[in-house]
């Protein structure tokens, strides 16, 4: 959980920063998308680094989900008879309670998102358009429900990281002091907030016409 999650977070940070290039114009964004595909060349054939990254990410997603499913199944086996009274959460932290269903929403989002932005299958401009055109077309006001789904998914990701980020450190035994855990929890909240804001700003600006 911790190790695969960490790899996915690094990807999210890079992806969020890459998306912000949309504010620097079509050329800059498309050039960046092009660079993703040609990085390393001519020493390496095109897409080598990109394909390796894609394989590592796909592996991380699968292992992350496998770990989550086994934990959920162990939990169900560990409590065969449920409580009659609704278990009242005593710990503070809403994010913790969203991890399982939030994770499902996030993976559904990723599927839609790849069909939208990467393959263009559900994108008005299709797969042959430039990445910039796909992105701008994807968040037009008449497709407000797509943008809304993106926003909901980003909030779920924020909550997922709010718990996941510091929890990974605890699982690796790195929070042996209340002070280090406190600092990590604050850090997790800050990083999650920055990621969510960084991700949602582009779709919102496209929808309200600031980015065309």
């Amino acid at each position, binding site marked *: *959980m911790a190790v695969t999650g960490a790899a996915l977070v690094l990807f999210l940070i890079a992806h969020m920063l890459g998306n912000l290039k949309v504010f620097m114009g079509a050329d800059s964004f498309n050039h960046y998308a092009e660079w993703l595909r040609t990085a390393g060349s001519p020493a390496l054939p095109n897409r080598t680094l990109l394909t390796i990254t894609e394989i590592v990410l796909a592996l991380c997603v699968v292992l992350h989900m496998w770990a989550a499913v*086994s*934990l959920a199944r*162990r*939990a169900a*086996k*560990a*409590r*065969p*008879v*449920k*409580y*009659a*009274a*609704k*278990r*009242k*959460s*005593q*710990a*503070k*932290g809403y994010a*913790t*309670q969203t*991890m399982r269903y939030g994770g499902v929403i996030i993976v559904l989002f990723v599927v839609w998102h790849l069909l939208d932005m990467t393959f263009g299958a559900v994108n008005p401009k299709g797969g042959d358009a430039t990445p910039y055109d796909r992105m701008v077309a994807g968040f037009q006001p008449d497709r407000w429900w797509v943008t809304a789904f993106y926003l909901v998914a980003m909030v779920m990701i924020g909550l997922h990281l709010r*718990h996941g980020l*510091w*929890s990974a*450190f*605890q*699982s*690796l*035994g*790195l*929070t*042996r*002091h*209340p002070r280090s*855990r406190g600092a990590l929890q604050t850090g997790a909240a800050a990083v999650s907030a920055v990621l969510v804001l960084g991700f949602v700003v582009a779709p919102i600006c496209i929808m309200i016409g600031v980015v065309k």
Partner: protein
Amino acid sequence: MNLTLKIWRQNGSSDKGRMVTYRVEDVSPDMSFLEMLDVLNERLILEGDDPVAFDHDCREGICGMCGMVINGVAHGEQKLTTTCQLHMRHFKDGDVVTIEPWRSAAFPVVKDLVVNRSAFDRIIQAGGFISVPAGSAPEAHSVPVPKADADAAFDAATCIGCGACVAACPNGSASLFTAAKITHLGLLPQGQPERESRARAMVEQMDAEGFGGCTNTGECTAVCPKGIPFDTIAQMNADYLKAASK
């Protein structure tokens, strides 16, 4: 005050069990929760009914026997309090109170609210000890212990093995209990020789008992009557990873 109690009744481990509703009248706010159950049981005995079985021993919050889930919270909503130290002044006239046993595959119900917590004993047997030559007590100053370590070890050592952490955990994990024992012994000089083998053996026994896996929800430390710190779980993970990587 008068209360309505909904209590889990289960006549032995093979019985299916069910919730049964009782009324208790004239409950004094000065009674402890267990004394309130004593009043109910006296009446049930007079009426020729089977009294509600529940575990208890010290009734002063130190033995860890008296666990039950009260209105969905292990040991009730009062923080840092065992069921025996919970007083009826925290309830009000007319309240409906649901009382259930710890729910865990590793803690089978013996009868009504009594569960068998031998799984904890087996975790202790797996490594919750230090091996020293017995004999007369050594000179106390011969092994200096840094104050910070002594404090942290003592905080962890206050665990009374009640099992509330397991009962409250959405995953049914026994990590807080196991971590408390590993931290308590692992921070002291006497615990060093067996530190890694202890962490490994206790964690493996915990998993073998059928407890769930920890996802750091923090419910355990929030209900723990002794306030065992969450950091002990990080200490357990650190010791376990160190042992497992060898």
